[in-house]
């Protein structure tokens, strides 16, 4: 199982703060995002935007191989401070 979290404006657009998907061998971050984008038009357009990704609470900029039980997060550019 992969747990996926969404934050801030993305969470609001999707009306979803977290979901879980089954892990499949060889799954990557890009595959996961692709699958989510195919859910419907709202998910497609929301996830096509300028987003950051984190795997196991660490920012990732390139495609990453996922392993079962990982936590993935998608969110807009951060605006703290």
């Amino acid at each position, binding site marked *: 199982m992969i747990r996926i*979290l969404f*934050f*801030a*404006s993305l969470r609001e657009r999707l009306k979803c703060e977290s979901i879980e998907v089954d892990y499949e061998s060889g799954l990557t971050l890009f595959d996961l995002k692709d699958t989510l984008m195919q859910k419907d038009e709202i998910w497609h357009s929301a996830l096509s935007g300028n987003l950051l990704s*984190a795997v196991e*609470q*660490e*920012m990732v900029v390139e495609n990453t191989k996922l392993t079962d039980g990982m*936590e993935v*997060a998608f*969110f*807009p*550019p*951060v*605006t*703290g*401070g």
Partner: protein
Amino acid sequence: MIRVSEQDFVVADEYQALINDNASDGAVVFFVGLVRDFNQGNNVSELYLEHYPAMTQKVLCEIVEQSKRRWNLGRVRVYHRVGHLSINDQIVFVGVSSRHRDDSFRAAQYIMDFLKTEAPFWKKETVNKNISRWVESEIKDYSARDSW
């Protein structure tokens, strides 16, 4: 010390914690970020700060560790607030002590520049009394980070 909390902080207490029983450091630099009443072209009345708790602590620790590797620092304190804030409320405290002032000045700026672009906090502001909008990230913040 790194802390993320809905509770406000007291600058005097944070400063005291940097200097208490600290005979080796001759410099303290601190920065306090506040809620401004005007942002990106609109009057702001309130601010809400969301974060990704499990990641925030990790990222802030990593930024502080990086700063300690780059400069000769004594103590570092980072306090960031989340939740509902009003105009003029304190948002963030970054305090650094070091033997000499140059290290503290640079490290405080470095920590803020990375916090602004890498720590998972998001601001939602209420503008013109009743419209809520998520604050957009700014290119100048990335330029500041990339200058290191």
